[in-house]
């Protein structure tokens, strides 16, 4: 810091005299043709197509992106740190040695493979059911002449606003009466009936999408003698592929990450989903340590690294899905025409 102080004050003195000369130059330059051209390049004709503007965008967006990714990077690097690296103040980002055993512990602690399969099939099944039922409802809302349709659609909008927590107590009582607790049914059956996790949004997406398709499609199908179900199944549904994909992806990710409902309905632990399995990490590792050693009641020291490894293992599958389907996520809503 101190070395820099003296030169800067000197520089400002020098700068003062040269500044005047620069001013002359500037006046001469402004009138020249070359300057006009480079001005155009830097500031752009309409301000928002110049270099300066683009540079500003890059800087701001990169800063925001860094802010965004900081916790993710933290998660990744911490998950590979050894216990001594965690307490070492010199080591902030890069671990001294990659500690893969954190992942091994996390896999044991989460009962990872078992949970992965269970979470996977429930998420896929629930989102497929939701996708299908919401497509049917959305088609009905978009294309059918139904008395009282606007009232029903208003109800759809209303269901979006009701916090799921308001409904959870009665549903808990209902499911316990039906004997569905600690089975995957509470997560699957609402999806079958176009409800479930954010079902209202999906109905709206499908309605908006089907509304954009030309009317002639159904008319010509009817001329050919196809009933409404056949028209829907053979003509409209194949056309709705982009909407189906976007709904499936969103539904899958939301089901994967949801932990409120599993925490409520799947309490006794023989059916554990990944999103809720974080809280059992300590207990599972303790019991694993106890069975491993001859002495009972062993305590496994859980550190941040293992927790972060577990967190990464939980989000890894949707992350992989996102990597492949990224552009459908990002462009999907534009394509389905939900905004029009």
């Amino acid at each position, binding site marked *: 810091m101190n070395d820099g102080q003296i030169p800067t004050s000197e520089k400002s003195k020098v700068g003062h005299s040269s500044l005047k000369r620069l001013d002359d130059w500037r006046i001469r330059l402004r009138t020249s043709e070359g300057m006009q051209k480079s001005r155009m390049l830097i500031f752009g004709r309409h301000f928002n197509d110049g270099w300066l503007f683009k540079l500003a965008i890059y800087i701001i967006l990169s800063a*925001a992106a860094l802010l965004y990714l*900081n*916790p993710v990077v933290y998660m990744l690097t911490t998950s590979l740190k050894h216990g001594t690296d965690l307490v070492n103040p010199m080591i902030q980002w890069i671990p001294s040695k990659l500690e893969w055993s954190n992942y091994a512990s996390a896999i044991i602690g989460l009962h990872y493979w078992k949970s992965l399969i269970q979470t996977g099939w429930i998420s896929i099944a629930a989102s497929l059911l939701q996708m299908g039922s919401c497509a049917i409802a959305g088609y*009905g809302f978009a294309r059918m*002449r139904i008395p009282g349709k606007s009232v029903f659609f208003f109800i759809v909008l209303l269901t*979006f*606003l009701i916090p799921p927590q308001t409904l959870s107590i009665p549903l808990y009582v209902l499911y316990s009466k039906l004997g569905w607790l600690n089975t995957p049914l509470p997560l699957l059956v609402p999806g079958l009936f176009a409800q479930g996790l954010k079902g209202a949004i999906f109905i709206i997406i499908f309605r908006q999408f089907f509304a954009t398709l030309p009317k002639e499609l159904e008319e010509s199908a009817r001329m050919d003698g196809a009933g409404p179900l056949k028209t829907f199944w053979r003509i409209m549904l194949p056309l709705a592929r982009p909407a189906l994909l976007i709904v499936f992806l969103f539904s899958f990710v939301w089901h994967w990450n949801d932990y409120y409902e599993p925490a409520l309905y799947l309490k006794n632990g023989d059916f554990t989903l990944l999103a809720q399995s974080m809280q059992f990490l300590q207990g599972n590792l303790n019991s694993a340590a106890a069975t491993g050693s001859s002495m009972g009641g062993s305590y496994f020291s859980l550190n941040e690294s293992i927790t972060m490894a577990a967190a990464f293992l939980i989000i890894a599958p949707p992350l992989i899905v996102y990597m492949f389907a990224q552009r459908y996520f*990002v462009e999907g809503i534009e394509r389905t025409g939900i905004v029009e």
Partner: protein
Amino acid sequence: MSRMNMGTLMTKEDHARHRRMQSLKDALRGYLFLLPWMIGIVMFVAYPLIYSFFISFHKVGVKIDGSGLKYDFVGMTNYKHAFVVDNVFPIEMFLFMREVILVVPITVIFALLISIMLNQKFKGRMLYRAVFFLPVIFASGQVLLELFNQGQGSLPLVERYNLTDVIYDVLPLTAAGTVVDLLSKFVIILWFSGVQIILFLAAFQTISKTIYEAAQIDGATPWESFWKITFPAISPFIILNLIYTLVEQSSNPFNPIIRHILENTTDANTGYGYASALGWIYFAFIMLPILALVFIARRQSKKTEATR
């Protein structure tokens, strides 16, 4: 052609009956498509709503012989209890509302700014879009909580420059508490803006390019054309995003009220009845700002129709 034939062959009454039959058929077909949704609404929304409304006026207990639940009517007691006896709920409700008033606009303004920038043409914007949408993928309750517990929700800058102390020096105690609380999970607040960014981006695509070109020819600066063209066109989406953010905030894992409600469910003294009453009060408090927003949106759309 066919209509003419029908007209000559059918009497007026036949015609009307035929039409009625046709519309009945249409309606039945329509209801066929809505049937699954209707069953779902009755089973998973209407019934729980009515039931929870019913038990919010009752004290729910287990029958002495243990065969099921018994309901004792207690009137408004549960609702009164929430504000008079419960010393946690009103405070948490107040804190939640105060936080929402700050968090919701921050999220939407951030989403708007980012989406305006992402809407510009530059190289690698798809990459940036992917980054800003990433949190939707893993903003799951427990992973989020764990990151938050390890202090990763805050801005890196806050720790480095000890901003917390500065804030406590500058602001009065209560305001400082809120601001520090916000800063401590600022990144996570921003993380909840993925869907909103996408909605804004989609909204921008609905504005035709020719309007901007015309404005430019008339000598409008980008600043002017943003406020005169873009902003009016996307203002319905601003309201939509405000509502979406509000709904999302009201059911996110940081919400202490939900925890409080769930704790009361298993509490022997209060139980289901009281928890349901809390749920309804909570619902009412969330509906208040939403209704206000819907009202604004309606007035706005009427105004634009009038000017057209």
